[in-house]
């Protein structure tokens, strides 16, 4: 009975083509549009490339300080002002308690929409940014729109935990949290998953973690240590320091 249920599950396809130098269409998957959300931590080194190909760029509050201060040293440019004028977010959203006044003035004068949500203390800045994208994206578009988030990992652990919870709260969206060292995404139990590995930019280290609840059964292919209807939970086995093998990468399914 369970086998039949898994076989009839829809497959969700994942790939990290957004990390490739030129956005191209690999044969196996349509090009994905993506929105970029920048949180208030050090920018990853590949930020200029990520910025250039984004459909929409939102800074969450102090994320704007990071773009203002750090973009220059990530480019090969000599002209500081030119770099500053090139990387302008479409939206700056949040409670505005971290963005510096001069940064806010600069981007406002350059046409960024300043979306001041300081009256709302119930949700994090990332939550506000994702909500906005969620509201303005049709159900059909959601399957093709990826939201890339930088600065969500590391730093204060409660912030990181809350950012990971966003993946669960908005599990109908494709949200990827990125750092210099890794990317993470949620694999909802409602689907089987095919993950295409871009081995020029990612891997080989990988893992699967049952954050929030144990997994009664997980099965994978394409890893060095595959799981076969394996149970996973914190306190017992979780899959860390695994290695991706095949180009196609891993298939994953299971509740």
């Amino acid at each position, binding site marked *: 009975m369970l086998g039949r249920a898994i076989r009839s599950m829809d497959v969700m396809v994942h790939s990290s083509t957004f990390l490739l130098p030129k956005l191209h269409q690999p044969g196996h998957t349509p090009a994905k549009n993506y929105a970029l959300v920048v949180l208030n931590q050090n920018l990853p080194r590949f930020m200029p490339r990520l910025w250039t190909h984004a459909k929409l760029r939102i800074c969450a509050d102090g994320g704007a300080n990071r773009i203002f201060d750090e973009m220059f040293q990530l480019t090969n440019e000599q002209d500081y002002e030119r770099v500053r004028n090139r990387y302008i977010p479409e939206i700056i959203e949040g409670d505005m308690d971290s963005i510096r006044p001069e940064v806010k003035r600069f981007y406002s004068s350059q046409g960024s929409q300043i979306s001041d949500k300081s009256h709302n203390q119930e949700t*994090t800045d990332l939550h506000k940014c994702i909500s906005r994208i969620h509201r303005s994206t049709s159900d059909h578009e959601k399957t093709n729109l990826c939201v890339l988030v930088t600065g969500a*990992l*590391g*730093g*204060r*652990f*409660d*912030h990181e*935990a*809350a950012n*990971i*919870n966003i993946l*669960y*709260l908005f*599990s109908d969206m494709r949200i990827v949290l990125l*750092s210099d*060292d*890794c990317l*993470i995404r949620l694999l909802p139990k409602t689907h089987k998953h095919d993950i295409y590995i871009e081995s020029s930019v990612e891997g080989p*280290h*990988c*893992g699967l*973690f*049952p*954050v*929030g*609840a*144990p997994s009664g059964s997980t099965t994978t292919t394409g890893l060095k*240590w595959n799981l076969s209807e394996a149970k996973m*939970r*914190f*306190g*017992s086995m*979780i*899959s*860390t*320091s*695994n290695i991706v093998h095949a180009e196609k990468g891993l298939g994953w399914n299971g509740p």
Partner: protein
Amino acid sequence: MARPTMSHSSSFLLPTTDSAAAAAYAVVVLNQRLPRFAPLLWNRARLRVCADGGANRVFDGMPELLPGEDPDEVRTRYKPDVIKGDMDSIRPEVKEYYSNLGAEIVDESHDQDTTDLHKCVSFITRNPPCSETSNLYILVLGALGGRFDHEMGNINVLYRFSNIRIVLLSDDCSIFLLPKTHSHEIHIERSIEGPHCGLIPMGAPSASTTTTGLRWNLDNTSMSYGGLISTSNIVEEETVRITSDSDLIWTISLRN
């Protein structure tokens, strides 16, 4: 339900403390940049263990954190007691340097089932530095941030060794497990930690958690990923009390 109470305190982070009263602890250093309080922690530790490349971090990082002093002198003073792991990250000259100073090098074959931290915690439990092992803390530097699968593996060590007081520390925060088998009293050292805190049901949902001492207390409240988790909370009182039906990760920010 009458559960035993477990008391927690971060007095080990205080700059000056009565060493007789302070909790005994071992320090484990993993392979990430040292936090700024590493020298302070090192001094009063009963045992200092580097996991493989953690030794590089001590070798490079301690003199950086004590810039006014002679690097060689710093390295001699801040030397690990044990360096453990498969030795594929530690630089040869670092291994030789500490070996010559008397550090015990515990080389081991690549065991894929356990992380470096797991191996170090196992080692410490088998070779406790002092007799009072029931209250021995294991403080870990370099367990958070960096590669996410490493971080998850390190957090899993807290769950797997839930009977041992293991604290993961970074520049920004500390985290430790609150096992569901106990009620918890967390004594807040306001000079060095807070006010931001959180309670995270990492491994499984909690049907009922109750707290006192926080700005937004929980009262028989459910928590889960996909629902409510307690983050960006604020410690308001000197003692925070927590009781839950599920294991929780407690986190508190550290002051600069």
